[in-house]
């Protein structure tokens, strides 16, 4: 009797295995969370050192226009003004999104409303393929085609904000387009039918019904594209000119947060002010990606109704 009692009360082999599997899969999930937390911890601890260890005024850092962390001014303060890079990053991001949005929306509307057959056959697969093209390839085309073109058209070196924005425009175009197509497809069919039944022309239906209904999704797509543009490093670094100066016009060499980071981090000594200042730039990048993330969430929440 005891044997039966014991076997009934004992945990079965299957239950033990289940516990084991649960623990293993849980630890995998935990690992991802640990990675996220430690990325924030390490980048923040390095990035904040500029302000707490090197005693740089955070306001001077954000608004100063001279970036030369190795040099000091008459008061012995280092030149760590990040404004040129912050401006550069925001400029290329907004410009590229500004150019890409009408093209992306137009193409997406064409693919879903005007000519679904051709859209599915040609445009769909091509945009999907282009989403996967590595960013250095975009940068290489920028260097070999776009920069000489800009040089011939606008004079100067050809490197600058405008070249960076154009490269980013082509880079985010497929992403924004394919996300917009998905939202347009999600607009229920009876919206279209009701609009047409009321006597609306196709354009009235598109403009007054479909685009209105898909606004949250389109906004999400654009913000997503902006987040990608803001964080893109190499493609921009190759064409922007890498001069940490306040951009005078769109065709003069400039710099972005990412371009300064990719160039500088290997040439500075760990723990020095030059190095810490670069980590502060990385921290700005990190916080901005959080901001983009929050915006996307807010749009999704509002759009869900």
């Amino acid at each position, binding site marked *: 009797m005891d044997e039966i009692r014991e076997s009934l009360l004992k945990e079965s082999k299957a239950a033990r295995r289940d516990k084991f599997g649960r623990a293993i899969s849980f630890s995998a999930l935990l690992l*991802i969370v640990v990675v996220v937390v430690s*990325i924030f911890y390490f*980048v923040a601890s390095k990035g904040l050192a500029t302000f707490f260890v090197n005693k740089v005024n955070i306001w001077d850092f954000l608004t100063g226009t001279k970036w030369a962390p190795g040099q000091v001014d008459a008061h012995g303060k280092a030149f760590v003004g990040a404004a040129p890079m912050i401006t550069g990053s925001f400029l290329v991001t907004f410009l590229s999104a500004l150019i890409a949005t009408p093209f992306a929306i137009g193409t997406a509307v064409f693919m879903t409303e005007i000519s679904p057959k051709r859209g599915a056959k040609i445009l769909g697969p091509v945009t*999907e393929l282009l989403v*996967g093209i590595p960013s250095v390839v975009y940068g290489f085309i920028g260097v070999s085609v776009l920069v000489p073109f800009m040089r011939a058209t606008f004079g100067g070196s050809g490197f600058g904000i405008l070249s960076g924005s154009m490269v980013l425009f082509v880079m985010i175009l497929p992403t924004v387009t394919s996300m917009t197509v998905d939202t347009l497809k999600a607009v229920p069919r009876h919206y279209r039918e009701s609009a047409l039944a009321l006597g609306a022309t196709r354009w009235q239906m598109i403009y007054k019904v479909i685009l209105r209904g898909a606004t949250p999704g389109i906004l999400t797509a654009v913000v997503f594209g902006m987040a990608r543009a803001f964080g893109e490093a190499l493609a921009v670094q190759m064409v922007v000119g890498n001069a940490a100066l306040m951009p005078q016009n769109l065709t003069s060499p400039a710099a972005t947060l990412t371009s300064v980071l*990719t160039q500088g981090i290997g040439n500075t000594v760990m723990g020095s002010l030059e190095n810490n200042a670069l*980590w502060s730039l*990385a921290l700005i*990048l990190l916080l901005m990606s959080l901001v983009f993330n929050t915006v996307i969430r807010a749009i999704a929440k509002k759009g869900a109704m």
Partner: protein
Amino acid sequence: MNAKQADKVATIVLYVIAGSVILILAALLGYILIQGVPHLSWHFLTAPATAFTAGGGIGVQLFNSFYLLFITMLISFPIALGAGIYLNEYANQKSRLTGLVRTAIEILSSLPSVVVGLFGFLLFVVQFKLGFSILSGAIALTFFNLPLLTRSVEESLRTIPNLQREAGAALGLSRWETVVHIILPAALPSIVTGIVLSAGRVFGEAAALIYTAGQSAPALNFADWNPFNVSSPLNIMRPAETLAVHIWKINSEGIMPDAAAVSAGASAVLIIAVLLFNFLARYLSNSLYKRLTATK
């Protein structure tokens, strides 16, 4: 202008926009392939790179790209699989903690890859003293790859109908046994698609690798397959410049006399690889689905 005229104008404008986008995209693809493909030759694909003279190849970089991809997948797939299983099969979907974890994964996927690379540099290259190595690079790429792969595993598991789970439970199987013996085999085709698609992304990534896997490609001795030798291709502690990093480096340094030709060829190789990954994903998922189910 009345409504009908507006409709016509709008249609024409939309045609123009779509046409110009097709033109841009076609010019892009055409440029890379037309510029790059003539440079492709057996010599170009296998010879080591030369820094100061023309006529170098991309052999070592090509091997590094594939090897790094392999090591990255080796590390990231088990973690993503575990996390995906927990999220879809065990986690309480309504609990706040699960929501928080999902947010964390989303944030990780939206981080700029250069920040992920810098974190890898700080922690693994400097603190843990792994140096510029394949291992550091693979770990950085794992962080970059994990959120996408986890999400694709989770979504593949979600498409399996609950009937299967209930049937497993009714037969007296534990949840784990149901997952391993029923759910995973059913979800395998779409999991494989997810892996291959994310492989395409990892293959072309460069920003996360510059400061982790390094920017130098020491000569390899392809006759030496002992992973502990310095010049062995299998050694995971050697610095390894990949194809994407190579394109970036020769373009920004400008020392190599035929940099434009080499990067055109290398870009073509990258794009062809991405194309192949896309086709492979489609083919594998179809053929696996046919093999694992009774559908014809």
